[in-house]
């Protein structure tokens, strides 16, 4: 409701024949102010989440160690006579990221639910998509830190030359994480009130993000091949980028009607 007030004021101004208001509405200044407001809100939500997290590092620490545990489980399951199967490193990296990301998503929104802050967030005169972007940025930061731990760890445990291909590996990881987190943040936000939220999130998220997994793992293993197959990796990167564009747009578009309840 409060969002509509400025538009109403502008509409009344226009009706009363205030040319300034009308000119403002169609100007690029309006668009710029609107965008600034949007970014400011998103960054504010991000700052809030980071501030809470810095006090105890609860989600970060537990997510990191879960990811490490995940990698170790896969290592013990797959390594035979000291050797892992050929493409295991790429697969394990992305699977560990997937599992850790799912848990992190659940727990970030659990915190909102537990503190009952979600109603305050929704009542604030902020555009809903900006709230979504703020949450998304928080998850991206968390998963980024997880990746910073996972990549060297996987490279070490599986003797995979991951660190030598960072010029393409980083874009793959960034785009893959954005795609996964974009869909995950939307679903996790919507599932906050459901009793079955813990298991429902993976059920919804995994089928839809399987193209991300395929592209990420295939792209990474193309980089790990000898000689590294950069064109293939770039093709998978292109697929990831288009996935990101489509699904971030869709999520921004549907966050508003979904959170209306």
């Amino acid at each position, binding site marked *: 409701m409060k969002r509509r007030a400025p538009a109403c004021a502008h509409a009344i101004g226009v009706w009363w024949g205030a040319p300034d208001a009308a000119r403002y509405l169609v100007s690029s200044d309006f668009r710029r102010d609107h965008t600034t407001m949007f970014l400011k809100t998103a960054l504010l939500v991000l700052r809030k989440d980071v501030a809470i997290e810095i006090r105890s590092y609860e989600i970060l620490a537990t997510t990191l160690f879960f990811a490490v545990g995940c990698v170790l489980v896969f290592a013990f399951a797959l390594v035979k006579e000291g050797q892992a199967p050929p493409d295991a490193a790429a697969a394990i990296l992305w699977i560990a990221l997937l599992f850790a990301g799912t848990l992190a998503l659940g727990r970030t929104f659990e915190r909102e639910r537990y503190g009952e802050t979600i109603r305050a967030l929704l009542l604030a005169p902020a555009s809903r998509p900006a709230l979504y972007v703020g949450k998304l940025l928080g998850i991206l930061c968390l998963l980024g830190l997880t990746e910073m731990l996972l990549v060297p760890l996987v490279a070490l445990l599986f003797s995979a030359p991951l660190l030598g291909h960072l010029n393409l590996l980083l874009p793959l990881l960034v785009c893959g994480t954005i795609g996964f987190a974009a*869909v995950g943040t*939307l*679903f996790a936000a*919507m*599932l906050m*009130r*459901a*009793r*079955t*939220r813990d298991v*429902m999130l993976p*059920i*919804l998220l*995994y*089928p*839809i993000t*399987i*193209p991300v997994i*395929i*592209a990420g793992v*295939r792209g990474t293993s193309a980089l790990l091949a000898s000689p590294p197959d950069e064109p293939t990796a770039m*093709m998978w990167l292109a*697929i990831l980028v*288009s*996935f990101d564009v*489509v*699904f971030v747009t*869709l999520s921004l578009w*549907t966050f508003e*009607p*979904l959170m*209306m*309840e």
Partner: protein
Amino acid sequence: MRNLFLPLTVVTAAMFAYAPVAIAGAPYESTMLLIQKIFYFHVPAWMAMYAGIAVCGISSVIYLFKGRPAADRLAVSAAELIVLFGAIGLVTGPLWGRKAWGVWWQWDARLTMALLLELVFVAYLLVRAYGGPGSDKLAAAVGLFGLAVSPFVYVSVNIWRTIHPLNTVVPTLQPGMRGPFWFCALAFLMLFALLLNLRVYLATEQTRLDELYLAEEDSAA
């Protein structure tokens, strides 16, 4: 839609009664012989499934942004049909593959893609059943995302695996096979329309029942 029900039933029943005759009359395919006849039900089941995905996705968008309950009823009906026809395709596919390729499952691109989309719409039904308050809107988002992810699933799974011969089978069908194939395709699409009609009727009746309950509570209060 209600008065289409009887004619649809009659036509669909007649088509399915004739289908075995048409299928038996079709020529044998040279390398796969008898087992290839599964194709006359397998591919039309996929076509019905994709029709369902389009219907579910579009009505989900309408429900999300316009809030029309009729769109929600159409979406849930289409989702159930996607799961049904997808299951038919996913069972007939491996049965065909067991004979034609020697193994039940070979991560063939088409079957994998259908499995993924089936999972998305099973998730749709699970969300509606167990998702808690507001689950109809969340399910609509899942339906929309399911439709949106189809091209990505197609591209990524296709590049990931390609052994399925059917990408070009329809244009290069032997002339004798085209007739029965399109006949069965039409029969399945009519079956889809019929079942959709029926299921939407059920959903409408359920809505009416809920309204009656609410009216009773209001008059008692």
